[in-house]
Each structure stands twice: as C-alpha cells, then as structure tokens.
C-alpha cells in the first residue's frame, strides 16, 4: 500500500529525542569566537514570524522574540543583543550576539519560533568547520563544546623561539644570505667598510621585513628570489673589480637589503606568527637574522681574515677566487630561480 518511505535528513543525537517533521525555511548558524564572544544568525520567513510574534505577549521585537529562544552556556541562560534585518523576498535575519561566560565549556540552544525541522550549525570560529544538528521547534540542542581559549603565549619563549628561527634562517639554512654577507665581508678588510655595508643591509632588510609583515609592501616570491640571487652575483662580481668601499656600493647594498627583507618576510609568514605576540616575534626574528649575519662574518674573520687579511696575496688568492665562486653560484641560482 505504501511506496518506499522517505527518511528525512534528521540526525539523531545521543540523549536527544528526535522527531521527524517537514523541513522548513528556517536556518540557524552560530559562531563561538575565540575572543569569547558569540554570534547567532537566524534566517527565517519574515511573514510567518511576524504572524507568530503578533499573537505573542511582550513588549518590543527583542522582548517578544527572546521569549522563545534559549541560549545557554553550561546550562545557564544568557540574554543576547538582538538585531533584525529583512531582505527582498520577505526573508528575515535575526542576529543575536553576546559574550561567552568565562570558563564556559558547553553551549546549548533551543528555538521555539518554528514548527518545522531546521538545521543548526555551530562553528568554533568563523573559519572553523561547522557541526550541524537537525532540530525541531522548541527542541534543545545537544551540547556543543566551547573551545577553551588558547593559553596566552609566553613572551620570553616566543622571543627565544623566533630569535633561533631568525638565526637558523641565515645559518645554516640560508646559504644565499650567507654568501651575500660573505660578499660584503670580502670587499675590504677594513672595519669601517664592513660597518657601513652591514648597517645599510640591516636597516634596509628590517624596513621591508616589517612593512611586508604588516601587509604594506608585497612582492611575489617568484620576483624576489631571483633578484636576491642576482644581488649576490653583483656584490661578488664587484669584489673582483673593486677593492675599496665606494658610496654607490653602500646605496646598492641598502637596496639589496630591501630585497632580502622581502625574502625574510616570506620565510617568517610561513612560520605563522602568533597574533598575540606579533611584534615580539617580528623583532626577535630580525634580531636572529642579525645574529646569523654576524656569525657568518665572525666565522669568515676567524677562518681567513684574522690571519691573512694583511697579507699581500690575500686579495689575489682569497678575495677574487672566492668572490668569483660566489658569483658563479649566484648566477646559477638566478637562472634556476627564473626558470622555476
């Protein structure tokens, strides 16, 4: 006598009696934000909602509406702020917002302004995956877990972690940056020359690292990376032909520093900076990069500079061949990065 029975998409939850009614036009979505606020949006038919509210005692819209809405955290009801808007086609959107009580672990919901089944979706944050329950009018939802707030980041630990990350981004992981610094070091054994170049490079890459992390300056890695390789080649080639620090060299190192800063920013973005400790992480990463650069210079000084920089053959046997080797490597990288 009866044809095949249709089973509506009603999800049964443990401990909740489920009734299968026709699915109406009402939809409810809730977001439990990490900053301990919640937002609940009810989309429903405006005409039939108005008819139900008309027959209901109470004062203004919010007063009437909340009579049949229950928002509870750990079983304790809370009263939200109510917003209402209506779109073409007589679709009403009611927005309920408020604070999640401290230490709340569970969120429950009941909505009595519908006679039909409706879907209730809850997210732990705006971008988190949704959990959906199918509910009837007046039926209490099963509890949704409220995500515990992330423990506050320890500033000292964050600083140390990003200092190390900055250092290791140069030594041993950043061979291109190491060769660039080595190129700077090899130009002249005079401390003044080294100081000017390192200072220009440091100021420049700090500027673009900061600007890029705040989204002020962006440049695609496909452009930045070949240019970094090219800057290494230039510095190394110039070392072959130049033995003294010239003003334009400082300007060039500064502009190359701007490029390297964008490269550092790309690496730092990949590390997903903690939002609460953004400045600490940014500054300590930069400090780590400086320390890495100084370590490269110190190693070069200890290996060759200390003993041989005052020798007559130092330039001919150390500076020129090593610079040429760096230049060849950098040209190879440039081609490689451009082709990939």
């Amino acid at each position: 006598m009866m044809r095949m029975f249709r089973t509506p998409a009603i999800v049964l939850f443990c401990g909740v009696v489920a009734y299968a009614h026709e699915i109406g036009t009402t939809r409810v979505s809730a977001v439990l934000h990490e900053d301990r606020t919640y937002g609940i949006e009810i989309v429903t038919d405006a005409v039939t909602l108005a008819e139900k509210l008309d027959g209901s005692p109470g004062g203004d819209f919010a007063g009437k509406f909340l009579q049949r809405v229950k928002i509870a955290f750990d079983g304790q009801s809370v009263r939200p702020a109510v917003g209402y808007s209506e779109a073409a086609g007589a679709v009403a959107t009611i927005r309920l917002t408020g604070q999640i009580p401290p230490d709340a672990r569970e969120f429950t919901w009941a909505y009595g302004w519908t006679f039909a089944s409706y879907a209730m979706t809850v997210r732990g944050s705006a971008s988190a995956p949704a959990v959906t329950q199918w509910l009837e009018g007046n039926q209490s939802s099963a509890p949704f877990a409220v995500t515990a707030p992330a423990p506050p980041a320890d500033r000292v630990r964050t600083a140390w972690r990003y200092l190390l990350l900055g250092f290791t981004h140069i030594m041993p992981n950043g061979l291109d940056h190491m060769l660039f610094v080595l190129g700077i070091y090899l130009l002249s054994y005079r401390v003044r020359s080294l100081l000017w170049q390192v200072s220009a490079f440091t100021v420049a890459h700090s500027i673009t690292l900061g600007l890029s992390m705040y989204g002020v300056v962006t440049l695609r890695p496909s452009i930045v990376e070949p240019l970094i390789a090219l800057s290494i080649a230039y510095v190394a080639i110039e070392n072959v032909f130049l033995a003294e620090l010239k003003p334009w060299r400082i300007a060039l190192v500064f502009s190359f520093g701007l490029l390297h800063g964008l490269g550092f920013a790309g690496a730092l973005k990949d590390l997903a900076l903690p939002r609460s400790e953004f400045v600490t992480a940014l500054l300590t990463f930069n400090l780590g990069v400086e320390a890495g650069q100084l370590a490269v210079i110190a190693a070069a000084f200890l290996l060759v500079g200390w003993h041989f920089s005052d020798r007559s053959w130092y330039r001919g046997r150390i500076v020129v061949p090593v610079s040429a080797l760096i230049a060849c490597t950098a040209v190879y990288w440039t081609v490689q990065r451009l082709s990939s």
Partner: protein
Amino acid sequence: MKVSLKIAAAVLSGMPLFAHDMWIRPTTFSPETGEIVGVRLLVGQNFLGDPIPRDSGLIRQFFVQDAAERKPLVGRDGSNPAGYLRVATPGLLVIGYHSNPSPMDLPAEKFNQYLKDEGLDGIAALRARRNETAAGVHELFSRCAKSLVLSGSPDKAQGDRALGFPLELVAERNPYANRAGEDLPIRLTYENRSLAGALVIAMNRQNPSEKMTARTGKDGRVHFRLGREGMWLIKSVHMVPAPAGTNAEWASYWASLTFELK
C-alpha cells in the same frame, strides 16, 4: 453527531513538538483568470505555521483540479511557495497535496497527548488494552491537504471534488456559494469510504483558538455553520496500524481543507 465549541488554551503557550497540522495557503483564494497563484504548504498550529519548501522526495501528488482536468503544480525543489498554478478558466479549483509517509519517533507521554488532542480515542483505548500506554512509538505520517480556490463568481453547481487521497475532507457544498451562517456539510473519507466517529475541527484564521469540533456520523459527515468571514481550516487525523514491514507501529493521515469566505 454532536457539534461543540471549544476555546483552546493559550495559543503559543506551549508549541508542542508533535501533532502539527499541514495546510495549503495559496497567495490568493480569489485569482483572476490567467493569474499565476503561488501555493504555500504550511506546517504549524492554530494558523501559525512555517512554510515548507518544495521537496520532490516528499511529494506523492501535488496538483490542481478544475472542471476539465488535473494538472501538476510546477516548481523547483527548495522553492517557497512549493508550487505554482495558472488559472486557465473561471470556476472552482481544487488544489491537492498528498505526501509520502515520513517516520516520526515519539515518547509515550507525547504520543498519548497527541492521541488526546486529535481525538484518536480508539487508538488510545487499544493501547491501554494492550498495556502499551507507557511505550513510545514509531509512527509514519502522511499529509492529505486540500484547498479550494475560486476564480470568478461562485456557482452552487460547482463544488469540491474527491481527489482520491487516503484520508480526505470533501465539502459537499461549494463554501463560496454558501451564505454566512448556512450549514456546510463536510464528508470525511478513508480509502474512499465514509469514516465514522472521527474528530473534525474547524477554525478561522481571525480567531483560531476558538475551534468548532464535531465527530463524524455513520455517513462520515459533519456539519459546520461557518458564520465568520476569512480563511477557514477544516482538519482531521486518522490513525491505523502501520503496514507490516515498515518498522512502525502506527500510520497516521492528516487531512486538511482550506478556503476563504468573503
């Protein structure tokens, strides 16, 4: 047959989780010839309801019958109104919606209350005899909703028609041709035979808490004097043991008939 007037308790004081009516509410009960009419399906109580969007998985029959032919109501899944019709010729149109059965699980307390509210005393007595009053149930429910729409002038010769639904309310006079306060005979059929002893409830949209109730006689008829203007909903529920192999104990049929008097 006895007709009585019952004042319902507070309308919204306890929207229950069960025993919801379904009725048809067209965008107009008096369309012009050539007019497109949207046909809304509403689920609720006391004329307060929620629109149910079109769901092809639920629809067994959804059509309009005029003097000449029967035409399916068009629409796409998820749309509200659930269907549309075009009034081709003047006259009385009968809109029908018959759903596939849907399962519903109810705890004993709610099921017993629902039997009481819908006047299903025979089922309640049967459960009591079987010592099942404390048991929850698996039920299958089907909707058998009708609506009468008039295009043009009323004609006593034109009336409601039996559509062949399992449970069906048929107005035996054209309500649009009835004068205010005049007797309106309504026949309730189950599987095309008169159903005796069933509770039939009539309510007006302007004051739905003031209900007229009657039990059908042996001929399946009730008579209501519908004095008030406005939209009327006549409804009745019938329950039988569910067919074998359906994993349900009971099958219920929800008949409704809507029209609007002026």
